[in-house]
């Protein structure tokens, strides 16, 4: 109580200074008077009495100072004074302040923005209860598309029974369904889940309930749990949706609840349903076939179990499975299972890119810090005179250090505030980048942690800057003052530090530029990749008419298929009649995309070598016009014709890659080929022999950077109308046809979702845009770094010139001409530049290896890039040296000598 009162009194004392000072002066005066009077009473002479009184009291000023310290909060007052002083000093050198603040703002802004993404996507704990105990199991094998083949129900069952360290295993099977709205239809991505799914995942409902084990199996009503994002997007967060029924693929499904916001793997999902919606998932094929792999497995560690235990146990169970069911694990494909923490899986695709961006941003921060450090050091040298005077007036080293710290804090905090504003702008852009890599992108925000990060950066920088400046040791002041020195010219050490910083800046800039160069060259290489198509004036419209559930219902499938084919044909004919249209084709898969269905194949009379991975091909259908419409070149044989009908002999067209795979050196035409493998039994696709009638060129399906795989086309008329879309070729400006074509499709198929109305050029662009954004971000960091480094080297040399004006004056008066002086300064900068370039190229060599995975068609140590970058940095660096060198050359010896 007493202390609180005292503290409040002192706080009040901060503001009552002048009045209290007057009161104190009077009080001390009265003390002196009383003592003097006393001395006189004792018989002293009045003058002597006063002198003795003063002696006894020990100095008025000192006492006043001591009382003042007790009255208020001296540290608060002096810090306020320091801040006022710092602001005044910074206002006096606006150029310095502006350069430092802008440099810092860019550095802190870039780092804050990217840190916000890194934190949301990689670092932040999962929203799931005990999210760090969730594990993702991944089965993979050696073949294109084999990175994640998922699990079959039989495999999940074995793990559930055999691995005790997995406390619970949730099954999740991605699926698409068509949601019929009142006036539209959309395809939604759903997950078919087991009843224990949410329990294992540790997710809670925000509304209604989630699925539970009683929702498993057949004979239960289909129920749907909405994800938070889809609930907001589609239903506007309407809570009355719970308990209502919606129509999915023609079935009535009850919405039972909304689950909390959470990241979904591998992609965003709109809703989760019990398995009963898909008869296929409960069919005997699905449940019994070991190689029918459609299920993602997410497990929760049993209490007390460790990830290591789980790994060991999973490996043991998997080894037993492989030896018991050899036919399901083709030895040439090297089947394997990895146990990965769920959080890592979520960040997997983003990790390399994000750490690359984070380190690029950190490099920019380093360079800006070095630059600010240099500027502060230079300013520090100019201010030495002032510091000496302050020291002479009684400021201790600690006090001076604090003054510097306050000044630097003011600078870095202004920088941080501007930086956060920059980051606010950048986060939007980065979120759109992150969405391509991570399901957690919607968690990105500038929260307290991120703002704390910016603040910590600012404070750390201020500390660094304040302690980099060399202050004289206590006690050495006196000698300087005595020597009448204007400056503490022990600047040699400082110059060395400045030079080291410049070298570091150049080196780091080279590393960044090299990264930017490699990524830009990757982009150029990608734009050189030909799609394999003859034209890009092609519009694609995906409109799946045959839903997966219709396919799995044997009673309906024939009529549904005939109806779908009829509608496709009407669409084709009506769009064909639009002005400007050259050709319209129908097919399961759009050019430059993958069908997502690939199956094992075999060729008549060819058996795969032992130990070799079983050959597979992408399964597609195409109408006779498809190849001409899409611009897929026909290399040999014929296209499909209207005589390749249902019931006529089975024919196929293969792509060049498949032809090379099976028929290297022979004529593939007339040879027979067939789908094969255990999975075939569970599909509507026949394993009969099919005769090859044509070979088409290989196209860059699945992205310009992906290695194209084997493809087998079947006549659209001979197979079920799976997938399905239109390929429209026009003489020019095909995108202008989009709205007219979409209207026709909508009229003919009013309840079907219409998707990806895109030109081939857009599909191509979509596949490279994440890389382009990467390249652009790193390039802008690189350019920023070079600018900052150029300012840095010019600044240090300019400072060196101004410090050496006398020396240069003497040299010139002794006969050095201006060319020689200029060369001297250039040489000084050139040495720094050369060291920096050397270190930078070494660093770039290393960094290239790290980003190997982000490159395409460019070796990570590409000499052209490295040399180009070194030359560019060298040229810019020399340019930056030239300005101070010219200034040195213009030094007038007469003037400099006189002013010494």
């Amino acid at each position, binding site marked *: 109580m007493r202390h609180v009162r005292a503290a409040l*009194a002192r706080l009040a*004392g901060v503001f009552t200074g002048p009045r209290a000072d007057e*009161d*104190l002066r009077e009080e001390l005066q*009265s003390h002196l008077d009383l003592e003097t009077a*006393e001395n006189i009473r004792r018989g002293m002479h009045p003058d002597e009495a006063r002198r003795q009184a003063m002696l006894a009291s020990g100095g008025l000023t000192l*006492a006043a100072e001591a009382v003042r310290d007790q009255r208020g909060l001296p540290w608060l007052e002096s810090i306020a004074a320091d801040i006022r002083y710092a602001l005044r000093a910074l206002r006096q050198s606006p150029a310095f302040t502006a350069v430092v603040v802008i440099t810092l703002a860019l550095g802190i802004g870039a780092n804050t923005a990217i840190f916000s993404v890194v934190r949301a996507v990689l670092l932040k704990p999962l929203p799931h209860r005990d999210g760090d105990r969730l594990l993702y199991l991944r089965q993979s094998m050696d073949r294109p598309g084999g990175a994640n083949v998922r699990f079959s129900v039989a495999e999940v069952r074995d793990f559930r029974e055999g691995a005790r360290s997995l406390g619970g295993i949730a099954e999740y099977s991605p699926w698409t369904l068509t949601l019929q709205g009142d006036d539209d239809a959309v395809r939604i991505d759903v997950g078919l889940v087991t009843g224990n799914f949410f329990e294992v995942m540790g997710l809670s409902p925000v509304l209604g309930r989630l699925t539970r084990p009683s929702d498993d199996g057949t004979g239960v009503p289909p129920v749907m749990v909405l994800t938070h994002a889809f609930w907001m997007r589609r239903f506007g967060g309407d809570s009355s949706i719970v308990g209502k029924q919606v129509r999915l693929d023609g079935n009535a499904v009850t919405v039972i609840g909304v689950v909390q916001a959470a990241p979904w793997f591998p992609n965003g999902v709109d809703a989760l349903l019990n398995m009963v919606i898909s008869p296929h998932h409960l069919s005997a094929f699905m449940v019994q076939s070991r190689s029918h792999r459609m299920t993602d497995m997410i497990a929760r560690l049993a209490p007390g179990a460790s990830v290591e235990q789980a790994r060991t146990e999973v490996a043991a169970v998997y080894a037993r499975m492989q030896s018991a069911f050899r036919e399901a694990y083709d030895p040439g494909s090297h089947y394997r299972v990895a146990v990965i923490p769920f959080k890592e899986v979520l960040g997997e695709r983003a990790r390399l890119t994000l750490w690359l961006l984070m380190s690029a941003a950190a490099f920019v921060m380093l360079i800006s810090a070095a630059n600010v450090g240099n500027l502060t050091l230079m300013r520090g040298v100019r201010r030495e005179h002032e510091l000496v005077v302050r020291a002479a007036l009684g400021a201790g080293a600690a006090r001076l250090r604090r003054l510097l710290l306050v000044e630097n804090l003011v600078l870095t905090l202004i920088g941080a505030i501007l930086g956060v504003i920059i980051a606010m702008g950048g986060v939007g852009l980065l979120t759109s980048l992150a969405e391509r890599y991570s399901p957690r992108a919607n968690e990105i925000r500038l929260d307290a942690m991120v703002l704390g990060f910016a603040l910590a950066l600012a404070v750390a920088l201020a500390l660094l800057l304040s302690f980099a400046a060399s202050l004289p040791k206590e006690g050495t002041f006196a000698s300087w003052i005595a020597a009448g020195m204007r400056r503490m010219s022990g600047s040699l050490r400082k110059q060395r530090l400045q030079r080291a910083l410049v070298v570091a800046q150049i080196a780091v800039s080279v590393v960044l530029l090299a990264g930017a160069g490699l990524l830009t060259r990757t982009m150029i290489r990608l734009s050189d990749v030909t799609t394999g198509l003859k034209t890009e004036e092609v519009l694609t419209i995906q409109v799946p008419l045959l839903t997966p559930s219709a396919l799995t219902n044997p009673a309906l499938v024939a009529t549904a298929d005939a109806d779908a084919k009829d509608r496709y044909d009407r669409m084709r004919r009506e769009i064909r009649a639009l002005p400007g249209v050259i050709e319209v084709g129908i097919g399961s898969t759009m050019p430059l995309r993958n069908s997502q269905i690939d199956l094992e194949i075999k060729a008549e009379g060819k058996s795969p070598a032992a130990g070799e991975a079983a050959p597979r091909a992408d399964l597609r259908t195409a109408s006779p016009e498809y190849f001409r419409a899409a611009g897929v070149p026909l290399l040999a044989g014929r296209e499909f014709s209207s005589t390749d009908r249902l019931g006529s002999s089975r024919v196929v067209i293969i792509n060049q890659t498949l032809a090379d795979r099976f028929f290297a050196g022979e004529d593939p035409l007339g040879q027979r080929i067939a789908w094969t493998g255990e999975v075939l039994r569970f599909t509507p696709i026949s394993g009969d022999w099919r005769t090859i009638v044509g070979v088409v060129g290989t196209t860059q399906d699945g992205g310009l950077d992906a290695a194209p795989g084997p493809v087998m086309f079947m006549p659209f008329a001979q197979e079920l109308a799976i997938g399905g879309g239109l390929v429209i070729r026009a003489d020019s400006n095909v995108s202008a046809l989009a709205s007219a074509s979409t209207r026709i499709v909508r009229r003919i198929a009013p309840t079907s979702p219409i998707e990806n109305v895109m030109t081939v050029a857009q599909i191509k662009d979509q596949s490279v845009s994440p890389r382009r954004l990467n390249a652009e971000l790193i390039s802008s960091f690189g350019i920023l770094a070079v600018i900052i480094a150029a300012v840095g080297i010019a600044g240090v040399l300019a400072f060196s010139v101004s410090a050496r004006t006398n020396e240069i004056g003497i040299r010139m008066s002794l006969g050095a001409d201006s060319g020689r002086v200029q060369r001297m300064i250039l040489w000084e900068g050139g040495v720094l530049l050369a060291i920096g370039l050397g270190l930078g190229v070494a660093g770039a060599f290393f960094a290239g290896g790290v980003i190997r995975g982000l490159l395409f068609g460019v070796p990570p140590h590409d000499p052209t890039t490295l040399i180009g970058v070194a030359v560019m940095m060298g040229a810019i660096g020399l340019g930056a040296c030239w300005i101070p060198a010219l200034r040195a050359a213009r030094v007038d010896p007469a003037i400099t000598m006189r002013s010494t």
Partner: protein
Amino acid sequence: MADKLDVKQGTLALMVLRTLDVLGPLHGYGIARRIEETSKNRLTLNYGTLYPALLKLEQEGCVTAEWRQSDNNRRAKYYALTATGRKQLAREAREWHRTADLIAVFLAPRREAT
């Protein structure tokens, strides 16, 4: 004269409170004089220690201060003990005695030594 001692902050507050308790309201000079006399001039006080201590006591609410005419007709700032100050004095005096007793026991000559 014996060596002069410096006064420690805490002890000074106690001395000031005790002086005001015994003599009633007094100005700074009077307090200083009285403390020096009581200590038989073993202590000296200068403004720099006395006045901050008085201010601190005032901030804590142990004393109040007001300007008055002194006996010899001079204006001076008089400090007077408050109820809080009296309690504080009692508490500090008690603690001081306890500490002093304790230290005395520790520093007593060893009687067992033979």
